[in-house]
């Protein structure tokens, strides 16, 4: 007999397009209650849901690309630059790598033209092998997602 705990059902709050009433009343944690048109609330939640799914899809895609190019990469970060997401890759070497730049440009172009990522705006940047203080100026502290390979590998120089 299984002894696994059965999770308690999550109590949902339903906003039904066909329900009576045109306004949804929202009470946030700070109690600053506000009202919003029901159809507008549903539209916003649909967009948020789609954005969330696309972001997850983007991260999966970046992880696959990192894995394919692991030998050339010392660190990889998803951050913000100029109001868009930015994928910043720190290479293992200092010298210019023409093939690597082409690979990254192909990834960038592919993401921009992927219909499953039509809400994502992303720019890319390949940096030569730099230390943490130099890298820091390319990362926005409001969002830094750091990618680590499947293998546990100490990050030598690119740690922000």
């Amino acid at each position, binding site marked *: 007999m299984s002894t696994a705990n059965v999770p308690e059902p999550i109590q949902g709050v339903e906003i039904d397009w066909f329900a009576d009433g045109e306004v949804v009343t929202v009470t946030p944690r700070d109690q600053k209650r506000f009202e919003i048109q029901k159809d507008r609330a549903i539209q916003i939640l649909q967009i948020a849901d789609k954005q969330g799914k696309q972001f997850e899809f983007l991260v999966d895609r970046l992880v696959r690309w990192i894995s394919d190019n692991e030998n050339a990469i010392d660190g990889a970060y998803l951050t913000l630059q100029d109001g868009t997401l930015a994928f910043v890759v720190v290479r293992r070497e200092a010298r210019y790598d023409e093939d690597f730049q082409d690979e990254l*440009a192909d990834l960038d172009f592919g993401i921009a033209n992927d219909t499953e990522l039509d809400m994502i705006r992303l720019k890319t940047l390949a940096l030569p092998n*730099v230390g943490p203080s130099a890298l820091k100026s390319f990362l926005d502290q409001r969002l830094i997602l750091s990618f680590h390979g499947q293998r546990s590998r100490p990050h030598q*120089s690119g740690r922000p």
Partner: protein
Amino acid sequence: MASEADHISLADRNHDFLVDVLREGRFPDWAATVAFYKAVHVVEAVFAADLGRDSTSHTDREESLKTLKYKRIFKDYTHLLTASRIARYLESRDEGKYHQFADFMDAQEVNRLVAKRLYGVKQHSLPFLTDHGKALKKISPA
């Protein structure tokens, strides 16, 4: 909005300085930066002639280039963009193999970058330019 002719004129001014700074050979970082700004004006000339508009920012320009018809321009452009960003913003005294632009590219490599990637931006832009635009100053191919 700046016209195609305006951008070609600015591209040519950058070209003249680029030729000087490449010949001089002491400032590969500046050569990479000027090469990028020549590419910026070539791309803006394309947008003026083909789309009838300017870019509002570097990000806006990059987004506009990520369409199928501009794909080859975009790929060459990214090499110049990356080199110029490294030249302008990356100097490091701490750990890591990179400390200054010379660790990334020397003068010969910048010459190759210009001869291949700036040349590529120009060549792939020609189909979108008017006859006036096509008369912009030429980079020799690799």
